[in-house]
């Protein structure tokens, strides 16, 4: 049998388009011809793969047609165009909803801006407000308080003991970071020189 004819018969059989007699004849022929059987199986496999691939794609894009739309349109032919437009608008709903939310956000911002601007304008019309001056806090002469006086009695006594134990006339063990003196010298106020 011609290969094309065999493949067409196999395709018809896979699609259920063969009558019973022809199918029986084809089966008998394929039983005696392994090469033809292989070719027919290959064709039937390709047929099934095509059918499954297209069905999968169609199923992935499946969305039921709006029920009753055809009925509404056929009952009122003049409404067909309007229904079509409504369906088109429904298809574009996601894009329109974003635009609607943007419009709402812009309206809210505009209202807030008007409120803020009006408040500023009203405040300007009322003139500058005078704010009563706060009573000045009593100034604390920080310069008169030596660092040693800021310590509690316990630590003051400790520091005094340490300073007394230091050899007289010796330079501080470590110069400060800026080279002007150590931490101990910071503690010494002029009247603490007597401790040395």
């Amino acid at each position: 049998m011609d290969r094309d004819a065999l493949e067409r018969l196999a395709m018809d059989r896979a699609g259920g388009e063969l009558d019973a007699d022809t199918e029986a004849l084809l089966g008998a022929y394929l039983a005696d011809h392994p090469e033809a059987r292989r070719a027919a199986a290959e064709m039937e496999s390709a047929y099934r793969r095509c059918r499954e691939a297209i069905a999968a794609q169609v199923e992935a894009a499946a969305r039921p047609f709006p029920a009753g739309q055809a009925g509404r349109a056929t009952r009122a032919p003049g409404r067909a165009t309007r229904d079509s437009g409504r369906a088109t608008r429904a298809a574009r709903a996601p894009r329109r909803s974003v635009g609607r939310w943007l419009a709402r956000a812009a309206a809210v911002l505009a209202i807030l801006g008007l409120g803020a601007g009006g408040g500023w304008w009203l405040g300007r019309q009322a003139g500058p407000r005078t704010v009563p001056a706060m009573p000045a806090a009593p100034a604390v002469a920080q310069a008169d308080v030596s660092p040693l006086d800021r310590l509690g009695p316990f630590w003051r006594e400790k520091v005094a003991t340490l300073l007394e134990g230091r050899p007289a006339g010796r330079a501080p063990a470590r110069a400060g970071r800026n080279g002007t003196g150590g931490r101990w010298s910071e503690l010494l106020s002029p009247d603490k020189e007597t401790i040395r």
Partner: protein
Amino acid sequence: MAQRHDMAELEQAWAGIADRLRAYFVCRAGPTDADDLLQDCFLRAMGSWNGFAGRGRCEGWLWRIAVRTAADAYRRRPRGTAPWPDGFDPAAPQAAATAEAGPSAEAEAVWAAVGRLDPPQREVLALRFAADLSYAEIADALDVPVGTVRSRLHRAIAGVRDRISRADET
């Protein structure tokens, strides 16, 4: 009164094949344009219903309108766009996918191979597998003999099979 009865016939015929019509348009033009084509097809049927009513089988007439609608949309597509509908992209990685990659990859490979077929062959495949029409119904919708339908379908499936086997070899 007769007019109302006729519209009920159209409504009944449409309700019976609307899902298959949409599947056919999905296969021809992709899911994005399928709904527009379905609406277009319905409006065409509404517009020419008075000239047809009572002159034959309504379903076959609707399928002929659907085929013309898809063909017109194919001709009207912007110049430079791909000849295959949305979702067809032979350059995509999945187009070269082989059967070893899994059933979905295989389906994608077959789908890409379908997208590379000639329009008449793809048309027959869409009517056969997406619209689930018989050879006689396809022949009626395309206004061609049944033998032509068989021949186109055979060439289409053989073309897909050859492309898939070539992809499997590479």
